[in-house]
Each structure stands twice: as C-alpha cells, then as structure tokens.
C-alpha cells in the first residue's frame, strides 16, 4: 500500500463535527454581534453602536434585577461552598459508613430531580411558610439557590480532596498539631483550588438559574434571567442581546478560570 491508511478516520465524521461546532457557535456569535446593532432589529445590521448597552445600563428594572442576581449568587455560592467543604471533609477519605448512600443521594438530588419538579416543590413549601410567617423577602431565593448549588460546589472540592496526600496531615498530627491547626495549615492550603472552583461553579449556576427562581420569587423579585424570560414575550430589542452578552462574558470567563484551576497540581 503506497497511500497511508489512517485507521482513525471515519468517512464524514470530520464534516459532521465541523458542522456541529459551527451550529453550536453561530447563534451565540450572532447574538453577540447584534447586541452592537444601532438599529432596533435583531436581524438587519444597521451599524455599530453601544446604544443597547447604554439603554440596558440605564434601565432601572435591569439595574434592580442585576443587583438582586448578584446578591443571591454571592450568598448562595458562599453558603453552598462552606457547607460543601464540611460535607466533603466528612465523606472523603473515610471507610464506607452507615447512611453513606443516603447522604450521597441527598447531595446529588438537585442534579437528578428535574428542575421543574424541584421548582414546584419549593413553590408549594414556601407558599406554606409565606402564609404562616408573612415573610416574603429574598431569603427564600437564597436558600433555594444554596440547595441546588451544593452538588456543584461539592463535586470539585471532593475531587480535589481525594487527590490529596494523607501523609502530610498525619505528619502534622504526629507533631502535636490540633485537628483545627491541621485543617487550617495543611488541608486548607492544598484544598483552595478545589474550593475556588466549586465556589465559581456555584456562582455561575446560581446566576444562570431560571426555572427555580421563576417559581420561588415573590412579586417584584426578578433576577436577570427571569426578567429576560418575561421580556421575551414582548417585542424583543437588542437590549436583551446586550444583557445576554454580558452574562455570556461572565460565564465564559468563569469557565476558563475553572478549567485552568483544574490543571493546577498541588
């Protein structure tokens, strides 16, 4: 055989893969491009302008929704990450314990149960509490977000913890370090890439949530995604594109940092 035969090649696969990448990115790129359109159309290009970013920036509803989204995401990711670190410490590097599968099922529940089901369940439960206490503040959204962020924070932290060397902690304990000292001086410094990755994932997941927020929020508690969902029913202007582009930018930045963090070895 004169012609080299590539055993890895499959007819048509490269073409389909390329189509796939184009289809995956074309809508997103168009969305970003038209956020800079100077006209009101999202299909006819009329020239470059920052107009829609300015109008989104000055839109009071968008401002309020942005602040609310950030407050919820910061609280939820902080809470979820903190409890996830504790949970990861309790469930990693130990022998199988009683109730282990129940604990894992509970932590992973937000990943397995369809979002709409969780959303409805929270609507029912929080409606009961709202009637009983009269409180309708942001706390419901923060608790709901914290809960579904827990597995996203837990998984990278646990993965990091599993890859860590037990000997160092053993050595510290042998040198009469208290358990808290061991945690602060040995475990935590090694764990931080995992914690940061988990916190960032939780933050992005909270920031992007639509379904659960839509069902849990009280009147006037729109976050950016639920505000956008409401706007989609009306005539859409590139203002939505501008907001989307900003949110996309945040997600992409976080994903790239997250990927880099994953590569940091000890």
């Amino acid at each position: 055989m004169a012609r080299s035969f590539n055993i890895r090649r499959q007819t048509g696969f490269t073409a389909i893969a390329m189509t796939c990448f184009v289809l995956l990115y074309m809508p997103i790129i168009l969305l970003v491009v038209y956020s800079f359109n100077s006209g009101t159309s999202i299909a006819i290009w009329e020239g470059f302008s920052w107009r829609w970013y300015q109008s989104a920036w000055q839109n009071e509803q968008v401002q309020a929704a942005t602040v609310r989204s950030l407050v919820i995401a910061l609280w939820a990711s902080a809470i979820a990450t903190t409890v996830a670190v504790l949970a990861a410490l309790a469930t990693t590097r130990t022998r199988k314990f009683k109730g282990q599968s129940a604990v894992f099922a509970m932590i992973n529940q937000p990943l397995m149960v369809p979002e709409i089901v969780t959303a409805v369940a929270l609507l029912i439960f929080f409606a009961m509490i709202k009637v009983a206490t009269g409180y309708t503040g942001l706390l419901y959204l923060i608790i709901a977000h914290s809960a579904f962020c827990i597995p996203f924070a837990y998984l990278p932290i646990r993965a990091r913890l599993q890859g860590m060397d037990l000997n160092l902690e053993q050595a510290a304990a042998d040198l009469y370090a208290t358990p808290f000292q061991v945690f602060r001086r040995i475990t935590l410094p090694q764990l931080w890439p995992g914690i940061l990755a988990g916190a960032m994932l939780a933050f992005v997941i909270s920031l992007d949530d639509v379904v659960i927020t839509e069902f849990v929020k009280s009147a006037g508690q729109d976050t950016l995604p639920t505000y956008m969902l409401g706007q989609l029913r009306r005539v859409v202007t590139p203002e939505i594109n501008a907001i989307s582009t900003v949110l996309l930018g945040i997600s992409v930045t976080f994903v790239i940092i997250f990927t880099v963090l994953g590569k940091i070895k000890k």
Partner: protein
Amino acid sequence: MTDLATPQERRAARNRWLLLAPALTILIIAASGPLLITLVYSFLSAGDYGGVEWQFSWSAWFNVFMERDIFDDTLGFSDAHLSIFWRSVKLSLMTTLLCLFFGFPTAYFIATRPKKQRDLWMLLIIIPFWTNLLIRTFAVVELIRNEGTVNTLLIWTGIIDEPIQMLFTEFSILVGMVYVYLPLMVLPLYASMERLDFSLVEAGYDLYATRIKVLRRVILPLVKPGVIAGSILVFVPSLGAYVTPRVMGGGNQLMIGNLIELQFGQGRNWPLGAALSITLLAIVMIALLAYVRTAGEEDTRHG
C-alpha cells in the same frame, strides 16, 4: 455493631454527622423536604383559588391520565394530557437521537485529535455547556423567528417570498433542545472514546473489515457505555424541559414541564400539578435506575 465500635470510631462518626449537618439541613429544607410535601399534596383536593383543601382525595392522581366526560359522566383517557405526555416522550427521544447523530462524530473527531489539541476542542464544547440555557435558547429563537436571520437571508436571496413559520412549532422545540443539550451528549461520549484502544481498530482492518464494519462491530461496542450515558443525560432533562418549550413553543406546544406549571397558574389545581410532578420524577428515576443497572452489568462483564 455499635457495641463493637471503639470510642475513637464513635467520635469519628459523631464528627462526621456534625460536619454533614449544615449541608443536610439546607438540602432538607430546600430539596428533599419540599419533595415529600409535594407527594402529600398530590393526595389532597384542590382549593378553589389555588392551594389545597386538607382533605384526602385520589382525584389528582386520577386526573393525570383520565378524565370524566362533562356530558355523560363516563370515564375516558385524558386526550389533552396523553398528547402532551406523548409529545414530551417523542420530542425527547428525537432530541436524544439527533444529539447522538451530531455528538458521536464530534466526540470521535475530538478524541482522534493529537493529545495537546483535545483540551482546546473540549473547551469549545464545555463553554456552551456552562452558559445560560435561556440565553442559548434565545440565540436560536433569534435565528429562526419570522423576522430572524434565517428567514431574512432566505427572503433576501429570493428563495422564498414569505417567512417560513418555524418558531412556535414542535420543530422549533426540537431544534432548541438539540442545541441546548448537545454538549451533554458529547461529554460522556468523549470520555469513553478517549480511552478507545486503536490497536483493536487496526486489528479489524487487518482482518479486511471496511470502515463501516469497524465502526459498527469494533468501535460502537467499545464506546457503548458512553453512548448510554450520553443518551440518558440528554433524555432526562429533555423530558423535564420547561424553558425551551416555553420560549420555543409559544404556549400552544406544551410539554410535561409546561403542563405542570399550568396547574399552578391558570389551572389552579395544585394537587394535579403535584401528581404530574411526581409522575415526571418517577419516569426520570426509572430511566436513571435502568442506566445504573446497565452500567453495573457492563462493569461486571469487563471486570
């Protein structure tokens, strides 16, 4: 058992539960607990203005699939609900198949790149995966709406005179779901293809197999766990999809998720909504259990 535990072991167990307590408390308040209450609600009767009457009733579960004829009071299957269930299952299966069609070659393409390039190609799959589902759905809406890019382009080139109505059809929901869930197919497929042993492929060619035969008889059986995992990962969220059918279906092409929402809005039938939610959850759990069992069998066969 507990009698045999040493004091150290008992202390370790106590510490473990103390460390787990905060996480479990939040999850009980905002995940498991509400789910149990939903189950209870599905056995209550509906209040007149939403909410429930605390009175036991089977009617919500009865109404999931059946309805009483308003004229002659006879029982029959609920056509409206059945057609929505059928649409959900049909669209989810089609989404899974299309994702497989596009995802399989893509994952294979990435897995056969030189090692250094693979991470970069995978990043291109992961970025959409972590970006807002609503935004991605909206990006597709802009593309296919009547005054959107595709129609504008087709009219401009003179291929059509009138815009084609693509949005608010089953077709648009399907396009949206394939677009949104495709990364979920590629990720596990890639994971199993990356470990593919190409000496087996080579052996196939040495034995005069054609490319298609190698694909069907060598590659496909080897990456079957990835195919199953990807299919489950796409099928499960498709079945419970809410945002994509709401935005793409425009209110007249409902899926189960939208039917559930309806019961808490205009429908004002919370117990029915609760029963429908539990039904959806049950279907999803069956799919997941089936997956766990096949995955387990694969493991024992190879190990």
